[in-house]
């Protein structure tokens, strides 16, 4: 795994690396050092990158960009991108700052909106993949995100290949109003179609997966895997605290919390993710291939 993201850096020169570290929530005292946003541990940037952006002291999993996630999961050279060229509109004529932010997030992430999608091979198995990117408007789900995820699910059904969605999102994109809420229905409906076709659908929940995204396709996987200590849940912690007027217990709304309460199948450290997902998807791939048209 060493040097995985170094390669990513070479491959995507357009992406401004200093900005993408912001999405990792790691504050950097200098170019050489990275500070863990959870425990404050200072690490050499090189060590941090080699460790897949996991703190070598406390094990906190910092956020990955969608391209980094792709490098982590896809067999080298196997990515065939789907649905480029889809852009968000401003259907409610929200404040013009919104358009500025879309524009700067496009430059920052190299994405058109908050999802990167396509077909990959994962340990040799074909998979229809969608990866949400928190660095683009907090991974918020507007029409484009809903459209791309729905298309991945529909196309996986057409191709009879397993679907995997990697979530990282604060929820619906407020600036699209109710159009964004309706994306919960489209994506959920597409999951149920996959269920009917007996095409397996997997979710990988990463930090954070909340609100409208948690309450739709992220909760509907045949198998749901989460990264350690990802924040997951319906309501935001601040909203809950304001409602009940008390502090929340430690570890509330983490992957481990929801695994304990019965909503997540497996919590898997980043270093083991590809191997685990490969074994998991492999369990389903024989009958899937047999039913292929």
């Amino acid at each position: 795994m060493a040097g995985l993201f170094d390669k990513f850096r070479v491959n995507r020169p357009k992406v401004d690396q200093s900005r993408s570290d912001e999405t990792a929530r790691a504050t950097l005292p200098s170019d050489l050092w990275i500070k863990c946003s959870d425990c404050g541990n200072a690490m050499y940037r090189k060590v941090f990158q080699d460790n897949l952006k996991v703190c070598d002291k406390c094990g906190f999993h910092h956020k990955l960009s969608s391209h980094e996630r792709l490098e982590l999961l896809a067999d080298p050279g196997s990515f065939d991108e789907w649905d480029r060229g889809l852009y968000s509109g401003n259907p409610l004529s929200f404040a013009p700052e919104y358009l500025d932010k879309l524009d700067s997030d496009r430059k920052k992430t190299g994405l058109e909106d908050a999802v990167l999608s396509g077909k990959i091979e994962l340990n040799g198995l074909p998979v229809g993949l969608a990866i949400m990117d928190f660095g683009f408007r907090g991974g918020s789900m507007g029409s484009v995100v809903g459209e791309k995820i729905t298309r991945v699910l529909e196309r996986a059904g057409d191709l009879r290949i397993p679907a995997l969605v990697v979530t990282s999102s604060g929820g619906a994109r407020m600036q699209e109003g109710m159009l964004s809420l309706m994306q919960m229905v489209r994506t959920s409906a597409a999951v149920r179609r996959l269920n009917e076709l007996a095409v397996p659908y997997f979710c990988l929940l990463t930090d954070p997966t909340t609100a409208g995204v948690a309450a739709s396709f992220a909760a509907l996987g045949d198998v749901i895997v989460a990264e350690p200590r990802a924040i997951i849940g319906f309501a935001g912690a601040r909203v809950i605290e304001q409602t009940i007027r008390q502090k929340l217990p430690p570890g509330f709304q983490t992957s481990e919390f929801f695994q304990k309460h019965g909503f997540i199948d497996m919590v898997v450290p980043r270093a083991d993710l590809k191997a685990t997902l490969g074994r998991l998807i492999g369990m389903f791939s024989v009958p899937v291939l047999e039913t292929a048209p």
Partner: protein
Amino acid sequence: MSMILEVEKPLLELEKKIKELKEVNMTGRVDLSSEIRLLERKAEQLKRSIYEDLSAWDRVQIARHSLRPSTTDYIQALFTDFMELHGDRLFADDPAIVAGLARFEGRACLVVGHQKGKDTKDNLARNFGMPNPEGFRKAGRLMSLGHRFKMPIFTFVDTPGAYPGIEAEERGQYEAIATNIALMTELGSPIVTLVIGEGGSGGALGIAVGDRVLMLENSVYSVISPEGCATILWRDASKAEQAAASLGLTSEILLRLGLVDEVLPEPLGGAHRDIPLVFETVARALRKHLGELLLLSPEERVKQRYDKYRRMGVVLDSPLRA
């Protein structure tokens, strides 16, 4: 306690004055009928000027009005033989969602709706219409029953949102909502949903996926509460009025965006000002939409429902510039 909108205060004062004059007139000592007629004309004009140009925030206030008819009022007025059924068979019964069997014009059907309280005590019992996971699971259990026995499903939407609490999270609020949304996309029953008051985000949508989604004119339906949006965007909940105007939460805008199928007119000033008239309007609309949906097979309904939601989104092929 009846809530009074700031904009309607002059009208209510005028109406009070008319009432007083009428009382004096009744005594027969003086003839005030011409003054009364004049004031009544004035009141009518004032009513129009106030209510015909309501802001999004005014509508939020009307949608939350404590005298606005609630789910149980519609059940009582439009259905017969209502039998409330309780519980999700897993954990508890959720009083914030009312569900049961009833007859609509003789036909057995399944009715589900959010229920706010009529007063403070009732509101505490109903958790202000904010469901816990078991509410969505009860709804799902009964909708599946309706589907199995080919009963039409009617849902009434009126909630500030799903309850944000520790236990609600522990019991999987997000999973309960997701599962019910997904379920409603695959049920063969005709599903008619009516937003009667406040459609609060995922907690509303959790029972609001329908072949037909209707809205009363002054009801609102929003991805986030105006207060929540103002807090996130401007860190200031008092800018809710501005947020309401930005969120596109009125029936008029949602109809234009194709997210609701029909808007049902209300009497001037809101449903609470002429409740029997609203019941008539709603009954007519439910009859019409159910009649149309019954002409389709369950498979056709599921397919049309999928296609309807599949189209919801605004996607461009080139980026917008500020």
